[in-house]
């Protein structure tokens, strides 16, 4: 009889403990700061769409409306309490605002950042303040290649993947291209992008030669008349550009009038952000990248998560999602996967260290593909990366892409423990492209 009493008592205590822990998770909120350009030239094409992607996915997570495997509400059961923060104003302001978010406003986790300049300036500060931070968009490989990070994660591939995939695509689809030139913004993102494309072309295409007239305009310069003249005079067959923001759209307008897209093959690693915005003004024939399986490149991917995201985004914002909404949503999905996994392992709401341990080296399903946290000691993601050719579909009234080809993550990004430059210069050893 005593045994029965103990059993009943034990069961009751367990039930109360479970109820209490569930109650803690439901009552608890995770304070999340989402940072993107809400003003300045990066706001329209990147910052605001990225914020919208975050807003949509957070609302769905809190309401438990996402398709599996993200159909349980909250982060480990805790609702997300979000604030949106402007990234514009330069690196000093970005760092100061990060300290405000963490030290004054008590953010539990920070998600975002578009500019490679922001990320490079922030990375050491993040580890100094020991606050879990997920970089959503910025692409410079230097974040995890120049130092080991403890509290920083990045849930999308870096610029090396974009540009090695570009070199593969050129080799495969345009085998006659031997000479190439570039126009890239003169800071970390533009310089890294050109370096990786140039090295990739030299490694993959026999006889590939860069022009000595590679253009380096200032970020947000807006006027490219002189650069377009120089590119037109150059005898390179292909122009590489990692332009983004308003610069991308200005270059397209100015180049269209002068026929550069008819006279040269133009490869733009971030052109996906302009596709829906420019519509029929987007020139046909651009070799378009979206920095991974995002935006117009995966418009027709019919996975349940992607189908839900495309439709929900269109219903809410009146346009289809470009790359940044995908990339911000992906960062938050990665966090959810880590919180849920850590919560299950801990049997309750996890600590930050437990979330970091669960995040590190994890693999999670994103909207249109699988993300592996395979580089940077488990802090840097790898994803497949691909390109297509722009074509305006008059029937649909929107820009589409043809000849889309994706390359596996392990084909376009270096293996763990190897930095991008050494890997490409060494002939991309270990690349798994089939």
């Amino acid at each position: 009889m005593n045994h029965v009493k103990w059993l009943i008592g034990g069961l009751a205590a367990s039930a109360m403990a479970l109820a209490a822990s569930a109650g803690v998770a439901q009552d608890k909120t995770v304070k999340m700061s989402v940072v993107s350009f809400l003003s300045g030239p990066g706001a329209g094409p990147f910052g605001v769409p990225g914020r919208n992607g975050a807003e949509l996915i957070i609302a769905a997570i809190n309401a438990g409306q996402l398709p599996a495997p993200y159909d349980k509400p909250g982060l480990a059961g805790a609702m997300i309490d979000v604030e949106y923060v402007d990234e514009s104003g330069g690196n000093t302001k970005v760092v100061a605002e990060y300290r405000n978010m963490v030290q004054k406003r008590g953010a539990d986790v920070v998600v975002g950042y578009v500019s490679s300049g922001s990320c490079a300036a922030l990375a050491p500060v993040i580890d100094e303040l020991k606050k879990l931070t997920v970089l959503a968009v910025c692409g410079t490989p230097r974040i995890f290649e120049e130092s080991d990070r403890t509290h920083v994660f990045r849930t999308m591939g870096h610029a090396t993947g974009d540009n090695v995939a570009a070199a593969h695509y050129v080799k495969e689809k345009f085998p006659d291209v031997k000479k190439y030139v570039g126009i890239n913004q003169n800071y970390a993102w533009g310089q890294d992008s050109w370096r990786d494309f140039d090295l990739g072309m030299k490694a993959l295409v026999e006889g590939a030669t860069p022009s000595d007239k590679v253009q380096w305009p200032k970020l947000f310069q807006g006027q490219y008349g002189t650069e377009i003249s120089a590119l037109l005079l150059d005898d390179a067959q292909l122009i590489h550009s990692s332009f983004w923001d308003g610069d991308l759209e200005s270059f397209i307008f100015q180049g269209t009038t002068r026929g550069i897209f008819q006279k040269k093959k133009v490869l733009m690693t971030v052109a996906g952000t302009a596709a829906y915005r420019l519509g029929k003004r987007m020139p046909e024939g651009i070799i378009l990248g979206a920095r991974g399986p995002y935006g117009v490149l995966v418009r027709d991917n019919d996975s349940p998560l992607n189908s839900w995201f495309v439709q929900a985004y269109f219903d809410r914002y009146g346009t289809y999602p470009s790359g940044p909404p995908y990339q911000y949503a992906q960062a938050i999905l990665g966090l959810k996967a880590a919180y849920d996994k850590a919560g299950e392992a801990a049997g309750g709401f996890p600590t930050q260290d437990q979330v970091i341990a669960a995040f590190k080296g994890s693999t999670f399903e994103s909207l249109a593909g699988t993300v592996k946290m395979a580089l940077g000691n488990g802090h840097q993601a790898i994803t497949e990366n691909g390109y297509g050719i722009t074509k305006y579909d008059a029937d649909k009234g929107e820009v589409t892409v043809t000849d889309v080809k994706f390359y596996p993550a392990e084909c376009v990004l270096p293996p763990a423990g190897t930095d991008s430059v050494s890997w490409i210069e060494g002939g991309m050893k270990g690349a798994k492209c089939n």
Partner: protein
Amino acid sequence: MQTAITILLDGLVFSSYLFIVSVGLTVIFGVMKILNVTHGSFYAWGAYAAAFLIGVAFDAGWPDWLGFVAIFAAAIAVGLVLGLILERGILRFMYHRDEVLIVLATFGTFLVLEDVILLVFGVDPYFAYQPMMLLGASEIGGVSRDNYSLSLIALALVVALVCWLGLVKTRWGKILRAVIFDREMAESMGINVTMVYIVTFVIGAMLGALGGAYISPTVSVAPGFGIDVIVLSFAVVVIGGMGSIPGAIIGALAVGLSRALAVHEAPQLELFVIYAVMAVVLVFRPEGLFAPAKPRKI
């Protein structure tokens, strides 16, 4: 030869752009001795207003040439409204204050106007490419050029000519020069200096807005549009000499041509060359190429 022609044309186009955006700044400084940071706002508001009006005209199916009317209408409207509000609402209370305070006031106003742009026009860029497409392209020296950018050269010549005629050949120009030379003496001779200041500031604002309005069909007009232009305009007027219109012409040519040369022959020096020209001029002529050296009043 082909490259030389291209460099020359590129340099002239960029110089014309620089002259148009900086002449308003130098006019205001020449007459009022105000280093007007709000000039970037005039430029941005001009661009937004023109892009908005061109969009309205295009959506309404009006004739394409009305896009050009919209550009000048936007410049005049922005200059008139913003110029009057700022001069009457803020600057007139500060004329007897320290010059640094006035610069700070214009800087503060610039920041406020940047945020007002966000409130009025939102964060999405405006595209007003129709006037540029309308003029088409020409082949010059083996390089395709958009005629709209070439028209900047003509516009800059017209602006320079009107400024010169206005200053040298009109009664109003004489009054202006009298105020530039000695404000107190001009006032004692019965010149309405307050009115001169209002008109000058409004004209300067219109010129700044014209720069933005005319450039708007070639770019994505987005928040933050007016920031970089302040730095470029300052470089031009510092090289030419603060307050000198011929100085603005020469400054714009020096920057535009040297930058075009750099882009074609040594692209990695593109950013460096503008400020290198400015530094060299300042070393040898700290007051700029065209501003007369003045004894300092103690």
